[in-house]
């Protein structure tokens, strides 16, 4: 029988994660789909978005005729500042990330493991050209780290693994992963499935996952 499910698209994953962020949290959103989470937080829910380049209280993108070239986010895209927001220098910005002042960090990933390891900066351990940026600092120190990613590679290889095959960004810090197929928590006994998209069975989800799932 043909599969009768529709994986979430980028917006769907971002919206699903946004629905779990309560008012009052201080949140860092990584580059890519995590950045889009901000678009799905209702305007009347006060969530404080931190950007690594020193923004506390990042707001939505400005109108094209209202771009301020001095005000960008971690992806160097033009943004606005919410009323009540402020700016800090780079050392303070990473003190916020490292020092336990973020309620949540959301990052993208190549792979995650059942023990909460995150691999999101390189596909080979000793690539000469390294693109680390702020990922290693952001992946530690927050009260919780969530990941948003496709459940498998384009070729269908699982990305939720017993052990990561790519070099680690941080070890054991990831608490939850939102994929295009499911939401899973990392527990002491591995991945616990919280939510599966309609039409996909637990067994079908397991077949697309390297790590052993529980429910």
């Amino acid at each position, binding site marked *: 029988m043909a599969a009768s499910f529709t994986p979430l698209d980028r917006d769907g994953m971002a919206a699903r994660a946004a629905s779990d962020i309560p008012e009052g949290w201080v949140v860092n959103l990584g580059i890519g789909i995590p950045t889009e989470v901000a678009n799905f937080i209702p305007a009347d829910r006060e969530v404080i978005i931190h950007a690594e380049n020193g923004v506390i209280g990042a707001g939505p993108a400005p109108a094209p005729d209202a771009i*301020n070239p001095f005000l960008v986010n971690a992806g160097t895209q033009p943004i606005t500042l919410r009323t009540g927001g402020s700016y800090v220098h780079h*050392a303070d910005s990473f003190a916020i990330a490292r020092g336990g002042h973020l309620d949540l960090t959301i990052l993208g990933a190549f792979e995650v493991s059942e023990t909460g390891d995150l691999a999101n900066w390189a596909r080979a351990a000793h690539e*000469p050209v390294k*693109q680390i940026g702020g990922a290693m600092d952001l992946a530690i120190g927050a009260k919780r780290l969530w990941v948003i990613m496709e459940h498998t590679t384009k070729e269908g290889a699982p990305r939720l693994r017993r052990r990561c095959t790519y070099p680690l960004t941080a070890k054991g810090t990831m608490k939850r992963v939102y994929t295009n197929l499911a939401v899973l928590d990392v527990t002491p006994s591995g991945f616990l499935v919280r939510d599966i998209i309609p039409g996909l069975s637990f067994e079908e989800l397991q077949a697309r996952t390297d790590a052993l799932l529980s429910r």
Partner: protein
Amino acid sequence: MIDKFVRSAAAALEGVRDGATVLLPGFGDVGVPTALLEALIEHGARDLVLVCNSGGRDGSAVARLLSLGRVRKLVCSFVRPASDAGRLLTAGRLEVEVVPQGTLAERIRAAGAGIPAFYTPTAADTVLAEGREVRNINGAPCLLEYPLPGDVALIDAWQADRWGNLTYRETQRNFNPIMAMAAQLTVVQTRHTVELGAIPPEHVMTPGIFVNRVLHVPG
């Protein structure tokens, strides 16, 4: 009378030597002291160690300094593979030390703050820790890191007075305040000049005691 204003870019960079470590702020195109960087290219110093967040996009002043072969070593948090820096690195013509961005900022801060070394959990469980001193502190592995002082820091400010008190706009601040504190010679380009006392004391972001020279570069 203290007056740190200089008349020309050449005067701003006078005395910068070959082999100098240059602290260069900026995140994307924001907070980059482009006029001073152009002046550094003009000045001709070679064999530099350049500390900045990234290897820069093609066409940027950073990329130009790199492709002119003036930089011996780049200390940064990332290099784009498809950029001048990435191609120089792949060709073995540029030494690069890649440092996590928060560690980069803290090493610069430590240099200005007189902290001779510190431990951080960032990267302690990664390939960056290979061959390095890792110590278990309160149950977590931590990596020993050393400060990153500069011989010269090039700073991009919004306002400056003759004492060198500075303000920055929005995310222009980024690495500027910590780099201004971490170098033997701190040179500023500023968009606006103001009278001494015009910046409310509570709003001074970099006090002038960290600044040696100021060049007015109207925007």
